[in-house]
């Protein structure tokens, strides 16, 4: 994670470095040796598989590592793949809800927990707990809560005379049920990043604003939000990428024999199906490449738009 509020500091350090431009060559050599383990790891476990994935997306996979070059066939096949289209739609809905709502709620929680109230540490811990909980455990617990016949949620609803729906098996509702869990479990993680961002905002700004008679709402919109914008930008890029790779909750919570699966499966879920269930790794690689391209485009757009709303200083 990049500590953005330290930006100014780093720039100053770089400046000092350039003064000492007569650094010995051996210093650089040592620096490279120091980062070599990480770089080698990155190359072997990320960059190389990435290139291979790209290559395999042009092949048809047979049993036990045999493959055959088929050119663009995997990509043309995508054009008529109804499931792929549906999974893009599902992922889109998922992103549309989890990213803005998740960011909004975590800023809200972060601002609230940044106040001087009793037991802040306890609240912070409580909000962070879902992050350190295994996704599988979260999925199992929510599956019980959501159970339409024996779950707590519908039991509570029955008190106010509402017959709760089948949260996870009704094709029209299942995706939203999962979105709710995803937002709930993601708040804590973003909250911690926002908290550190909030604490990087100098108190003097608020004091000055108070002198000028600004209320808390004005201060939030005129000081907190603009100064938090680099962190919001960072979090929105990371959550968007995370949302595109959404997989575990669907895998755990939606049964394969449920008709809700088609309406909930994400792109990565489809990738998993093709790669590891159907043993169709060539097509799966093509899906992964497509996903990469889509995320790349969206990230570039986000980078371009940041000039309009992100304030660094």
């Amino acid at each position: 994670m990049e500590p953005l509020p330290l930006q100014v500091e780093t720039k100053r350090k770089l400046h000092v470095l350039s003064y000492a431009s007569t650094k010995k060559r051996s210093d650089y050599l040592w620096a490279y040796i120091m980062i070599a383990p990480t770089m080698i790891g990155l190359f072997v476990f990320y960059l190389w598989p990435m290139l291979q994935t790209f290559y395999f997306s042009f092949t048809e996979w047979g049993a036990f590592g045999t493959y055959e070059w088929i050119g663009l066939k995997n990509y043309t096949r995508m054009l008529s793949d109804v499931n792929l289209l549906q999974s893009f739609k599902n992922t889109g809905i998922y992103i549309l809800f989890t990213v803005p709502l998740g960011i909004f709620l975590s800023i809200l929680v972060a601002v609230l927990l940044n106040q001087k109230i009793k037991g802040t540490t306890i609240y912070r811990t409580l909000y962070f707990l879902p992050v350190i909980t295994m996704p599988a455990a979260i999925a199992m617990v929510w599956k019980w809560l959501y159970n339409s016949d024996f779950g707590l949620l519908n039991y509570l609803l029955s008190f106010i005379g509402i017959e709760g729906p089948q949260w996870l098996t009704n094709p029209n509702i299942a995706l939203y049920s999962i979105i709710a869990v995803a937002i709930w479990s993601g708040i804590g993680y973003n909250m911690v990043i926002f908290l550190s961002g909030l604490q990087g905002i100098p108190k003097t700004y608020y004091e000055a604003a108070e002198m000028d008679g600004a209320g808390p709402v004005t201060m939030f919109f005129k000081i907190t939000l603009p100064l938090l914008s680099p962190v919001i930008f960072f979090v929105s890029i990371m959550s968007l990428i995370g949302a595109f790779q959404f997989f575990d909750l669907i895998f755990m919570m939606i049964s394969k024999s449920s008709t809700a699966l088609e309406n909930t499966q994400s792109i990565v879920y489809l990738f998993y199906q093709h790669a590891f269930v159907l043993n169709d790794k060539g097509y799966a690689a093509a899906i992964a490449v497509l996903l990469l391209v889509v995320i790349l485009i969206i990230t570039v757009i986000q980078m371009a738009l940041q000039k309009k709303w992100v304030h660094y200083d």
Partner: protein
Amino acid sequence: MRKGLIVLLSFVLGVFGLLAGCSDSSSGESKDGEVEISYGFWDKKQVPAIEEIIKQFNEEHPDIKVKTELIPYGQYFQKLETAATGGALPDVLWMNGPHIVQYAEGKVLLPLSDLAEKDDYSLDNYPESLIDLYTVNDEVYGIPKDYDTTGLWYNKKIFDEAGVPYPDDTWDWDMLKESAKKLTNKDKGVWGFAAVMGNQGGYYDLIWQNGGHVISEDGKSVGFDQPVAIEALKYNISFIEEGMSPTQAQMNETAASDLFSSGKIAMMFDGPWMVPEYKKNPDLDVAVLPKGKQRAVSIHGLSNVIAANTKHKEAAWEFVKFLGSKEAAEVFAETGTVIPAFNGTQDAWLNSVPELNLQAYIDGAEYSNPLPSVKNTGAIWQHETDILKKAWAGEESVEKVVKELADKANKELEE
């Protein structure tokens, strides 16, 4: 720009984090004439039995050291595929029916027919359908280890309360349906039968009982769209339609086996692997499946196979022979985990839970059909789940879904 680079890098790393694979190598070393072979399997519950068997094996063959490699089932075949690609399969390993053809035709397994013939090793000691299951292109690739068939489990308490006689071998489809109707009690929240959507111990068994087939003998087409199969599927789904079974959605939310063991369901089909669970409830017992036009039940079992590129063929074969022996089968039976495949050693398994009528499972072996196995069984199963569920959920007609299923499955068979 630096900022951009970091963001860009983090997203690239993020995306491809999910592609990280792993491989493991395993090969034997020999020192002072001692040979080490590795044995790959997935079931943790069977570790004590396997260790005991290795101990007995070493009494006869002190020079062959066996190293066990436990790989959880969830990763087993993924890992095997990677290992097979890199030529690093364990020397001896467990194999199941759905994968045998893929592995045998992929030439990563050693054919055993010649070895068996040379050593006069009899394959008649195992149920024939299991030998058939592991025979690919007339070559036997696996020595059967254990097997499972399907039984009709029932809750005696619900039967007594409804005054319905317990199921026995005279039952047929009509009797099952009639009894389910009498046993269903909406007020108490009790269903007569669980029409689970499952192939082994589910619609496969019913299709066979109705005289149909799942995959044709020439292996070129599926039989789901035949009238007898449609009739069998409709019979299965009718329990849901007529309110005698929980709906598909309900069974997705709460597993039918959980509903059954907590007394919400009077009858269901299930395999012997549920014995440890169901024996906890003294109201439950098991009978043979009811008959349709004929008696039929699916059978599946594991076998021990040898990797084609093992460096210690002789040692691996000695170990596989021992794993398939009567002594080894008895060890498995006594620990109560599986029905051993070696004919005549099943008594010890029967006695492991004497209060249950486990004989039902062994009776089934006589008229059992092996689970069909083709090169891409996994893909066909996937289509079955994806497509048949629409009929189970009542969204589409059986006639419509079987047509779609047959089209897709036949295409897989062509490949």
